[in-house]
């Protein structure tokens, strides 16, 4: 049996099913209860689970992340929401100095999930659109996932909740209602740390995640008509990174394009390029190319934001350059 659901419904379903299954799972965040969340991910949750398991908190991100950490070390399984991923900066010390280092220092697991609605394309401007994953990619002790499809969104939220470690769950706001797909009715999970080939190809590997997957798939469709077959590797998990699958694909195609919505400099793409050049240099037939956002804050006006963000055309152009090698 299967059904068609949106990306946002997939997240809600995953959360709801885990909460029904495990009494120690509870949610906390700003406006997630009575209001159902700024994006309605938790709409109807307080009615089903009550205000003890769906907690409207004070507007205090350090307290939200810290309290989730405390509840996790005390044996609960909190899922905390940042209303926008941009606001995680307010809880940075908690996440980086306490949550991330806790297991390494104390051998006490911290099974928390932090949901981070991120990304642009929604005209949110500089404080409601950013992609902060690279900060945490650089922080040992945090797992990072960033699904691109309803199937992965549901499977990864479930894995994240069941994981004994802190997992940062990057959910893309633009994908929430723009992406729909068929998923099975039965219980399933997507393992953390496993990438997924979203389209097979032999000429160029696009290594990407989240919103980048959709631009890349559209670009692959276009280039296929020109006789260039692109393989789209959806990382799904950023930490741990599925290095094997990246290298396998690169060894097959010999050409690499890295696509992410985060800004270019210091983005995860740089690390992926380094891994590829260290471990698959002799397989490369062309320089590793990257498509990412400009190195600026996310601008507000439509003309500016569209210019700032990657898009299908930018991916196509970069892929054509690579194909010419």
């Amino acid at each position, binding site marked *: 049996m299967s059904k068609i659901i949106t990306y946002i419904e997939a997240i809600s379903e995953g959360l709801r099913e885990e909460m029904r299954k495990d009494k120690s799972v*509870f949610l906390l965040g700003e406006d997630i209860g009575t209001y159902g969340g700024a994006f309605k991910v938790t709409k109807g949750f307080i009615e089903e689970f009550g205000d*003890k*398991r769906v*907690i409207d*908190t*004070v507007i*205090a*991100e*350090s*307290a*939200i*992340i*810290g*309290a*989730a*950490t*405390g*509840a*996790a*070390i*005390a*044996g*609960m399984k*909190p899922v905390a929401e940042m209303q926008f991923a941009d606001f995680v900066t307010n809880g940075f*010390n*908690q996440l980086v*100095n*306490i949550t991330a*280092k*806790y*297991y*390494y*220092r*104390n*051998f*006490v*697991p*911290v099974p928390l999930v932090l949901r981070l609605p991120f990304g642009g394309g929604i005209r949110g401007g500089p404080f409601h659109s950013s992609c902060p994953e690279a900060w945490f990619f650089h922080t*040992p*002790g945090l*797992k990072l996932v960033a699904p691109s499809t309803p199937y992965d969104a549901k499977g990864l939220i479930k894995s994240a909740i069941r994981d*004994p*470690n802190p997992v940062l769950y990057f959910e893309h706001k633009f994908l929430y209602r723009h992406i729909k797909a068929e998923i099975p009715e039965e219980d399933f999970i997507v393992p953390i740390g496993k990438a997924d080939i979203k389209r097979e190809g032999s000429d160029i590997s696009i290594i990407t995640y989240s919103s980048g997957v959709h631009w890349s798939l559209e670009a692959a469709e276009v280039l296929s008509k020109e006789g260039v077959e692109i393989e789209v590797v959806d990382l799904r998990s950023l930490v741990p990174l599925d290095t094997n699958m990246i290298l396998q694909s690169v060894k097959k195609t010999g050409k690499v394009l890295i696509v992410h919505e985060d800004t270019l400099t210091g983005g995860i793409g740089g690390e992926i390029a380094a891994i590829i050049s260290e471990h698959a240099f002799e397989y490369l037939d062309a320089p590793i190319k990257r498509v990412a956002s400009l190195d600026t804050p996310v601008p507000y006006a439509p003309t500016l934001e569209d210019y700032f963000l990657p898009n299908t055309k930018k991916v196509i152009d970069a892929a054509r350059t690579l194909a010419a090698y």
Partner: protein
Amino acid sequence: MPTVTEKSKKQKTISAKISPSNNDSLKPDAQLKLYYFMKLMREVEDAILRLYQQGKIVGGAYSGNGNEASAVGSAFALEKSDYLFPMHRDMGAHFVKGQSVLNLMLQHLGRDTSLTKGRDGTTHYTDPKLRIYGNISPLGAMIPVAVGVALASKLRNDKTVAMTYIGDGGASVGEVHEGLMMASVMHLPFVLIIENNHYAYSTPIDKQFLVEKLSDRAIGYGIPGVTVDGTDVLEVFHACKTAVDRARRGEGPTIIESVTMRMQGHAAHDNAWYVPKELLAEWKRKDPLVRFEKKLTDDGIITKSKQESMSADINRQIEDALKIAFERPYPPAEQASEGVFAE
């Protein structure tokens, strides 16, 4: 909705409960225990400072000299199942919760069998069996975490209480405010001791806050706040007991300001040249250990011979712990790369 007047009434109630007449209600054997833990803290810390002078401690060493009554009296108000989040001048609180001298020595010496397996030092450790959750260096950061433990306690209705500490300096950190906001509005079983020891590293309190008492900040959270003499272990205990009982009944958090003096530098490397000699001399006369010793002697609770046997026992514990600790190696180097994630 409680009015401001009601709130200040609540604060009066808690002050009333720590009136001096109440301070004698602890049985003599309990008072002896308080004294023992205070003395143990003083002696173990002095031993650690000596090791530091000898270059045997891996990193820094912190002294809670002057803070013994505050550390011991507060933790003594907790049950075994309660959660303690101590700070670096609260070693006595660790002992009250059941920590061994050996474990603290192993921590300071960075040995393979330390609670953190050499991954962190000093009192930065978690011992879930004893429900001790040590602080981290950016002070105030553990307060939201302690609030989270209190939240778990409330969600499970297991009637446990989380107690934590902050200094006069750390109390400025934003996370303290955020934690208190959450704890107060959710009525969590949480007790915060603000140990006002007059200095944040080199910065005196007149550069840190304008309120008369740090417990006055409780008004801003709509919770009780009380200031106690942090050199009087019984006064600290009774105030904390009142707060802990209140928290356990589900009535929410309390702030207790415990006024003490940091008698040594910020850490062992610092001779505190910036603290006026007269101030130290004034507080030396209120040494919490000497003060309590006198009270116990006057009350006939402790005798000279009892004191001597206690000292001998403490010295033996320290010697034994150091003997074992120094025989332990540092952890194998390659362990550095293991255990970032739980399996």
